[in-house]
């Protein structure tokens, strides 16, 4: 399984033509279970990104439906942009991890986890502050 030759693209006898070569040209073909686990992790990050984007779009919808202040539109745009950044980071993170797996190196730490946690916490506090101000204003 893990000792399969590098030319795995079309079978052991075929040259490996998979792209990007910056990933598949490094090291040797790893245990497929590691590669699939890395793929699932990247997909989980992409889903996080999509959830952020959907959340941003939902806030825009809510703001337009309920005639809410422009502040919420600013928050929605910010959330969408954070979602885009997470999507890019998921791709970069998959590349780094796959290269490390193929080269037999220790896995790199997640690039964006700390930033994402801080961003979500700040957004949550801002939204809580907004909700409290609305209630107090009413």
């Amino acid at each position, binding site marked *: 399984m893990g000792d399969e030759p590098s030319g795995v693209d079309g079978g052991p006898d075929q040259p490996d033509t998979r792209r990007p070569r910056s990933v598949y040209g490094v090291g040797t073909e790893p245990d497929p279970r590691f590669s699939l686990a890395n793929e699932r992790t990247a997909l989980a990050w992409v889903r996080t990104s999509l959830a952020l984007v959907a959340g941003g779009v939902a806030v*825009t919808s809510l703001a337009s439906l309920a005639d809410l202040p*422009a502040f919420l539109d600013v928050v929605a745009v910010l959330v969408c942009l954070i979602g885009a950044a997470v999507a890019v980071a998921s791709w970069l993170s998959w590349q780094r991890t796959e290269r490390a797996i193929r080269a037999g190196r220790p896995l790199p730490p997640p690039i964006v986890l700390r930033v994402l946690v801080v961003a979500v916490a700040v957004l949550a506090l801002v939204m809580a502050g907004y909700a409290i101000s609305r209630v107090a204003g009413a």
Partner: protein
Amino acid sequence: MSARPGRRPDPRVVALADDPGLQPQRTAQAWQRTGAVAATGALAVAFVGARLDLVVLGVAGAVLAVGVAVMTVWVIPAGRGDRPARLSAAVLLAGTAALSVLLAVLGAVAGVASLTRALGR
């Protein structure tokens, strides 16, 4: 595991045909979940486009939603054991991440349009 014409077996799936951990199946499910979330996000963009009378945004969201749904059914990179030639996991991952960025841009455009209208009121 035989591939259909124009498709090739995923070597990782072939290698793990008897895997008791069901890794290919779990990966296929992860792809299906991602496809479902992406299609839902595209529908949300279509809805907000229609709500804000942004025809281009609404049409783009609807087209993306249908496209993602079709792709999710047609291209499953693991589990079924084959996929269209040229589509490696890396290509599919890059495409999915790019789709997420595109939806984020469309969502940001909707947010800016809504913001402009709110400030004009």
